[in-house]
């Protein structure tokens, strides 16, 4: 089998390249950095502390407060609001100059009013020229609501007759994992597992476009190898390198304490997904004249492929539909989460891989067999599509 020779040759050359090794380990160091961030995100979201999925800027909006009793001002969220204690006049001047988003005015006798069980009327002046008005309104609203509710409870407790029975309370139970936590824990982990597949796409570009740029393509074509041998041989070497990196990443993830159930099955599915992905990259490499063109094509193709993989996955998180399993990333996420998966769902994902693989390698080989595509003058994309569909006849190389 001739393609094995090509695979061995390409694999050995890549592994022996110092620059490749540098990139290989650089990627691993980036993975460590990402793991640190994801871990702290997930941990703090679970504990509801420090890091959140929304920005948490200290003093994002400024609010002037006139609250002599400090009953309200000390309960306002100082993590989001920059609270300035001002007199009515000072606050008004600052509002006019646009230096504050709002002014919260609490009656000076608020403490006495509360002690007497009377209503406290507060006023929030909001500057509508400031886009942060909704942030201030939300914060003040939630503070007054919380304080109001606490006061109501306290008044009720004190006014309840001694012999009166307390009304039954509320119990709340939750099931399932929250969406942000699922995104951090499952989606991000799935993305991390598939990342090496996208990072090594340039290897096949290097391997095929490099032959064109170095003018060594002619020698390769003249060798006793078929176009299929060359394409499959080179692609297999890249798939093997991806398999190596995926294996390393999985070991690191497991060592870092990530929960990956059925690791063997997960590994197999990720590596199988590498096959059509490399196939698609090979189409771009076979058609491109130079690195620049290949780079542009690769960027577009990978944006689309990322969408094809990630969108069904997100769809599965919101609505557990059968169709979402078409993306191998969805299946991988479900496998490492330990979900029970029906054979039909596995079959759907595998069918996607097989169909995409056959199609992509078929097109790549057909392109590589054409002298005009490999050596020029290169025909347009439309012409090639018509040729591939058999609507136009083109004479290929015999092998």
């Amino acid at each position, binding site marked *: 089998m001739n393609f094995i020779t090509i695979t061995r040759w390409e694999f050995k050359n890549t592994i022996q390249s110092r*620059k490749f090794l540098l*990139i290989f380990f*650089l990627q691993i160091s980036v993975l460590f*950095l990402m793991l640190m961030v994801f871990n702290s995100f997930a941990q703090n979201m679970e504990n509801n*502390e*420090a*890091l*959140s999925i*929304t*920005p*948490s*800027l*200290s*003093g*994002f909006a400024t609010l002037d407060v006139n609250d002599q009793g400090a009953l309200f001002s000390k309960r306002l969220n100082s993590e989001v609001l920059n609270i300035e204690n001002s007199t009515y006049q000072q606050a008004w001047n600052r*509002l006019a*100059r*646009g*230096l504050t988003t709002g002014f919260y005015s609490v009656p000076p006798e608020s403490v006495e009013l509360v002690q007497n*069980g009377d*209503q*406290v*009327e*507060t006023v*929030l*002046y*909001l500057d*509508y*020229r*400031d*886009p*942060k008005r*909704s*942030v201030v*309104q939300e914060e003040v609203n939630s503070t*007054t609501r919380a304080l*109001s509710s606490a*006061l*109501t409870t306290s*008044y*009720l407790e004190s*006014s*309840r*007759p001694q012999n009166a029975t307390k*009304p039954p*309370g*509320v*119990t*709340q*139970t*939750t*099931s*399932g*994992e*929250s*969406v942000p936590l699922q995104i951090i824990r499952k989606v991000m982990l799935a993305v991390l597992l598939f990342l090496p597949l996208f990072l090594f796409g340039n290897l096949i570009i290097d391997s095929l476009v490099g032959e064109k740029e170095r003018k060594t393509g002619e020698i390769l074509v003249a060798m006793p190898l078929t176009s299929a041998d060359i394409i499959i041989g080179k692609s297999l070497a890249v798939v093997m390198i991806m398999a190596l990196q995926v294996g390393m990443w999985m070991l690191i993830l497991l060592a870092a304490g990530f929960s990956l159930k059925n690791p063997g099955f997960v590994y197999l599915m990720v590596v199988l997904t590498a096959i059509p992905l490399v196939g698609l990259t090979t189409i771009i490499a076979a058609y491109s004249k130079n690195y*620049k063109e290949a*780079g542009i094509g690769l960027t577009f193709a990978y*944006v689309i492929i990322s969408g094809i993989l990630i969108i069904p996955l997100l769809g599965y998180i919101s609505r*557990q539909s059968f169709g979402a399993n078409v993306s191998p990333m969805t299946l991988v996420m479900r496998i490492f989460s330990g979900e029970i998966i029906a054979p039909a769902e596995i079959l759907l994902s595998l069918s996607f891989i097989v169909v995409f693989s056959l199609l992509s390698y078929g097109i790549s080989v057909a392109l590589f067999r054409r002298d005009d595509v490999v050596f020029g003058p290169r025909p347009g994309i439309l012409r090639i599509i018509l040729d591939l569909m058999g609507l136009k006849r083109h004479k290929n190389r015999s092998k």
Partner: protein
Amino acid sequence: MNLTALIKKEAQDILENKIFLLVVVVQLFIILGTFGLAISTAMVNDPAVIDSYGVNSAFKVGLSKDLEQSALADDLESQKLELEYFNTTQEANKFLGTELVAVIGISSQGEVQVELDTSNVFYPVASTKISKAVDSFQLQRSLQSSGLNSEQINAIKEPVKLKIVKLEEDNAVNIAMDSSYFVEVMYGFIVPFILLLPFFLASNLVTDSIVGERERKTFEVLLMTPLSSSMVVIGKIIPVLSFSLIQSLAWILLLDLLQVPIFNTVLLMLILLSLGLGFIGVGILISILVDSTKEANSAITLVLVFATFILFVPLFIKSDIFQALFNFIPTVLMVKIASSPAINPEILFYLLPTILISILIFMVTVRSFRHERAIRL
């Protein structure tokens, strides 16, 4: 060749660079994508926004038939929740996580039992609405059993009143979504991210320009022209920096069109100019040290990963210890400047380190570049 000619030539090279044009288009997609994402996440997090769009079908709550037309059902309906009745709560529980976001029942002892599915996309909104409804129901029950008269009940019901006075409504800024979540996400992360995108690209462009000249063997010719080394480096920097600033300015206009008004453009441009000098300076330093475009790209990617970490992680961290330091981070300053119609002059003090460090990096770069041996022809 004079400096203007070099600048013209470099500008033309950039404009004819297909990858540059592609990246500009990609940035446009990123902006529209992140904007859309902010809108949709605000929708699933903000009950007021959801109500304004009338998306009630996403909040189906299961109740047992005996609660039909009860006070609890009324409270839940007043929160615009769609109610579905089952013979028992056990029966309703079977649909929790698929058709239902929550199941609510009242036990034989009168206890309100709420079971919520946190995996639902709309869980934050559903949870808020259900809490409000249950709180209102509980309050009514407590008031009824307290033995108080109606006047006392009214005083207890709302001990704190909040009146909101809208100022300058005629000059109000139009915002795509007047929701606190949207405003925080947009100004707190997306705006600095979008405005910095062109500068991430700038360091790549400058390395491509310098290392590319060396690879094409045209750098010797450039150095033989009657231009000093400093002029050569400035001639290469000005077009890259100008294109980046123009792009950022265009993104500011686009954000304005999308109804995300950006304030203090001049000051923002000053920060971006400083950061641009820093990014481009690092790009030139890398160009001096590497042998090929491939090597330069790898090194730039690594530098950008670390720059992203330093610039954006402080936006998501609450830390009392590091807060004083975070105030000097350029992205933190950009958030405050871009979202405030008027700014406190003391912010200029926090800007100083960014400006000084960038100028320092730039000066070190020009000095290294002047050192002809460093170019390693």
